[in-house]
């Protein structure tokens, strides 16, 4: 391990980040080939002392999940263990589980949590343990490496709520697609369902589920970095942009004496904007159980606004050029928006191709004596000859092109084929007429 342990170390393993290498002996088991960072050296134990100076007491945790067996230097003490399902709740007369200081003795005592594990401890302990750099969470059984700057005071008394809030916020940041990004409502709903499932796993799952979900989240984040960033920026800049656009639009409108129409447009946009802001604020600070609903709402509104914005943008540009009407343009804007490349929906292994026949079905009853006589033939059977392949081909050929009407299509032309033929003829005519002029190429 060179360098300080990164954040990554104590997160669950991003599944798509491991290195695959043929230098690894065949016998090595899977978890040796999967590594959190790009280190190649297999690590024999789960605990490796860092060889950085001044940090003799720091530990980094590697791939194994074995619980620590003994107490370690550096202030790890026996501490209340928590079940995987529940987190301790803070109460006013709590005592710090680490240093056992009770509020009675220190009225200013502040409990801090770190969203890595949500184990609370007093600020004194945090300073003591983490001021020198990252360290392991002092709770027994918790192997998270925590940093000083990660600590904050909890907003909710119930830490599980606090945690869920954080998780949802994080998930929402990553999965910030809006309905308009999807081709169909169904895709969008599937997407929402997936996000909710993932969130649920992160919140309520057991260790393995959590880890898996976390990996998925990270994978998604890594894979869709640009889209996420785009969506995020779109959301952030929206207010400012619409304000600017509105101003520009107002100006253009005045110039073109289309005030009445413009004002109506502005009003509409303003409304949407306000609504958007309300919803945004709701989302940022709002209570969590509503989050999903709010997001849903917001997405819908954002789509409207995006369309409106585009329409406005279009109208400002075309207004200066041609002084066109505004109402029509908003429709066009919507269409253009639809044409924009969208973030991919769920992965389709078939690449969007459907080659299912539409006029016939392949079924077991399709037989022919000249085919069946080979069904028992050893050479066909053993060699893997596929009678299904033959049947589907014969059926395809029997029905393919039945609805292709060459004369019509070639005369009228579906697409450009007819022109090709005509072109060929024309060329020949030209050649014929040109016969006197040789075209020597040599």
């Amino acid at each position: 391990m060179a360098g300080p342990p990164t954040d990554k170390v104590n997160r669950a393993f991003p599944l798509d980040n491991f290195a695959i290498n043929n230098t690894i002996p065949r016998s090595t088991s899977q978890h040796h080939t999967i590594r959190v960072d790009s280190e190649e050296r297999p690590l024999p134990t789960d605990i490796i002392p860092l060889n950085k100076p001044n940090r003799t007491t720091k530990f980094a945790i590697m791939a194994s999940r074995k619980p620590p067996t003994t107490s370690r230097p550096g202030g790890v003490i026996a501490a209340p263990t928590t079940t995987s399902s529940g987190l301790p709740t803070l109460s006013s007369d709590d005592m710090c589980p680490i240093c056992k200081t009770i509020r009675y003795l220190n009225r200013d005592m502040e409990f801090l949590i770190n969203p890595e594990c949500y184990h609370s401890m007093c600020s004194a302990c945090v300073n003591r343990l983490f001021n020198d750099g990252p360290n392991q969470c002092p709770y027994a059984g918790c192997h998270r490496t925590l940093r000083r700057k990660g600590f904050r005071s909890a907003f909710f008394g119930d830490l599980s709520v606090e945690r869920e809030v954080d998780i949802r916020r994080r998930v929402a940041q990553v999965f910030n697609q809006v309905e308009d990004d999807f081709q169909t409502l169904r895709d969008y709903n599937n997407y929402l369902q997936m996000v909710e499932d993932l969130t649920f796993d992160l919140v309520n799952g057991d260790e393995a589920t959590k880890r898996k979900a976390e990996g998925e989240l990270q994978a998604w984040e890594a894979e869709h970095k640009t889209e996420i960033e785009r969506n995020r920026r779109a959301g952030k800049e929206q207010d400012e942009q619409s304000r600017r656009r509105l101003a520009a639009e107002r100006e253009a409108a005045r110039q073109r004496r289309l005030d009445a129409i413009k004002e109506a447009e502005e009003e509409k946009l303003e409304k949407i904007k306000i609504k958007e802001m309300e919803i945004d604020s709701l989302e940022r600070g709002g209570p969590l159980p509503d989050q999903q609903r709010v997001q849903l709402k917001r997405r819908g509104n954002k789509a409207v606004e995006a369309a409106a914005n585009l329409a406005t943008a279009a109208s400002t540009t075309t207004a200066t050029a041609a002084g066109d009407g505004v109402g029509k343009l908003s429709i066009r804007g919507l269409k253009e928006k639809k044409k924009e490349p969208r973030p991919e929906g769920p992965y389709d292994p078939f690449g969007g191709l459907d080659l299912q026949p539409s006029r016939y079905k392949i079924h077991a009853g399709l037989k022919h004596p000249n085919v069946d006589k080979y069904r028992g033939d050893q050479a066909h059977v053993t060699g893997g000859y596929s009678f299904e392949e033959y049947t589907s081909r014969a059926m395809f050929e029997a029905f393919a092109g039945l609805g292709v009407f060459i004369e019509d299509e070639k005369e009228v032309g579906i697409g450009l084929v007819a022109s090709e033929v005509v072109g060929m003829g024309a060329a020949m005519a030209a050649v014929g007429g040109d016969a006197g002029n040789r075209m020597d190429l040599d």
Partner: protein
Amino acid sequence: MATEDARYRDSSQYRLWSFSPTQLGALREKTNAAARARISERLLSHPLPTTTTSTSSKDLSTPTSNANTPDPDGNSTPALPEFLTPPEELTLVGYYTSEILRASEALHYADEIKATAAMFLKRFYITNSIMTYPPAEMFFVALFFACKVDTGHVNLSEYTKIFNKSPEEILAGEFLLCQGLRFAFDVKHPYRALRGAMMELASFPDMQSDLKRLDAAEARARKILQFSPLMTDAYFHYTPSQIMLAALSLADRGLAERLIQETFHFVQMEGNSADTPGGGNNGGGGGGGGGERGNKNYRANEEKAKVIGSQIRDKVLGTIEACRDMLNRELPERKEHWTNKPFIKTQITPLRKKLLKCKDPERWNLVELQRVRREQAARKMDSDDEDDASGGRRVKKEEDGDIFGGDLGHSAKKRKVTMKKEEDLFGGPMLVKEDPFGGAKVKKEEDSFGGFGGVL
């Protein structure tokens, strides 16, 4: 749109080799006209006596009387022969097509190969006039190449033994053929389609008792497919499935209609799923619209109607009927007609004689043509590279010139190079040098070939 149709439209057969009758007719006229014009010009610019001395080909061994053909206009300019008309060309192509079928039958080739060979020949003579390239030669080339395409290969020496041809004679036309086929070698036939149709028919419950009828119909339809569509223009105007159904209809109209009725049927435009299971055949779309309701279902059905609805059924029926009429003109019984001695004597022989008089003097001898082409190529070697070569390249050529030029000089001295030697000459430098000639050598080459243009 039905995927089956969309996929057929992607085939080279549809893209490149399907025409409306008008288009096909126009194409043939154009080809014929172009050939006339070019042959006239060539005959006028190359006095014929030279031609006869230049070649050993048996095609040209009978001294052509072109020069002596009575000039209809009574001009003093060198006389032009009477050219074949487009219908005459077509008759001759038909004759050679029947010869291909006869030959491949004698050799027990598979249906696909026979049909591919026939279609190769027919396709080739759409953009090439029969007056330009000798059909009697191209016929072997087409058969040989069809074997190659369909089975991967045929042993050339065996093939040449069967037909008593030299390998050069076969190979000389191969590239020409490929070019004439627009480098699309896949021909889609209706034979497997017939098998599919019979499978479908046999799967109808009520047909189980009537298997004899199916067998008879299949046998007859196959026989028709082995001849009629190849002797007509069916392949250019209809799809294999349509041709197959037309043949089936000629064999047993009831069966063909039954199949069409089962495939296309009334699609309810409202309400619940319109799949009316009849014979287990319909609605292949998979009855997709299950849970959807109302509007969506309507649209799905509308889409379905376009694929299997009654309107398209009527159009399919009409198309098949037209195809049936076409096939009906060349039923297998006409096979005898094409070998009938009086017919050949009165129809074909005069055309062949006429053809020999109006053939293209530069192109007719394929072997010679091939040889000249190769020599030109050798001279120009990789003209493509040269076209786009930068200055730097040119320097390199100069260096390479020696070796290559030497070779060429050698070959030029031996005017009557054999094919074998030529290949060496051609292959040798190609392998060693990427750009094997310099300007000076080209000139030398040209000098040594100076007489060739006249010779041809």
